[in-house]
């Protein structure tokens, strides 16, 4: 599958992958908090999210989504396969992104197969709001089929 350029953002400390101390234990500060990247695939902007989306990190995702929309990307797929934690703040950011792209007749689909993440979408009823797919390719194909 042809892909465009891949870009990541965030300060170096937050981009760092999880590390281990000499004693083999994970130090709290070593965990990835949030890592964001995006690339273009078949004319759709795919946002890759890794780590935890919460009250602390969600503003960075919101800024990225706003930036993409401001750069005329109105069809987005947010790949959440590597998201370890999502709370209502993160849900608010995703719904905010959906509202923005819909203002331009665009779309925001999600890729997620993790039960722990899907559960919060079910609890809140947002499974009826977002298209949630198993893979990025499937999300893009579904979006293309609707066009």
């Amino acid at each position: 599958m042809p892909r465009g350029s891949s870009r990541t953002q965030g300060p170096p400390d937050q981009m760092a992958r999880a590390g281990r101390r000499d004693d083999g234990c994970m130090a709290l500060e070593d965990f990835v908090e949030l890592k964001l990247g995006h690339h273009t695939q078949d004319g759709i902007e795919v946002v890759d999210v890794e780590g935890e989306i919460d009250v602390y990190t969600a503003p960075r995702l919101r800024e990225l989504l706003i930036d993409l929309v401001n750069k005329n990307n109105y069809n987005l797929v947010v790949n959440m396969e590597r998201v370890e934690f999502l709370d209502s703040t993160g849900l608010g950011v995703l719904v905010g992104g959906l509202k923005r792209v819909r203002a331009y007749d665009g779309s925001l689909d999600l890729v997620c197969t993790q039960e722990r993440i899907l559960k919060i979408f079910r609890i809140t009823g947002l499974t009826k709001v977002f298209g949630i797919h198993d893979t990025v390719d499937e999300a893009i194909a579904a979006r293309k089929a609707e066009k």
Partner: protein
Amino acid sequence: MATVEVTFTPLPAHVRTARLVATAVARRSGVAEALLDEVRLAVGEACSRAVEAHRRHCPAEPVRIELTDLGSRFEVVVTDAAPPDIGSDGGFSPVMDTAAVAAANGGSAPFRPVPAETRDGTFPAAFGLAVISGLADDVQVSSTDAGLSVRMSWPAGPSGT
């Protein structure tokens, strides 16, 4: 007396630490592995709401979490020191009736939701309480002049050694 008590300055970065501590104590208290994600998410929601309230009203005051092993249950109480938000509800569009949720769970007073602007203009902080009610099988939200307390618990087995 709580098994573990944590107070932290109301900064979003510390909510993650609170989640990690709560999950560790829950595991130690014998909460089933399958429920730990629920504990983590519910505690995170409660702490996020408290942090937002403190940042608006009393940023110098700490948020308090009490984690208690009650034997057959693991209880978490998140308490803030922010006064009930009585600002204009003009920007508030409730996603769920959290006052009804609180009342149904024995809350002593109706919960007053905070404005939505800190959550991308979409979800009020009260949305987090609604999420909590979907995660913990026992939730009590009580509001007083001194602040709001979210008490939630999960079944727990024998404590670890």
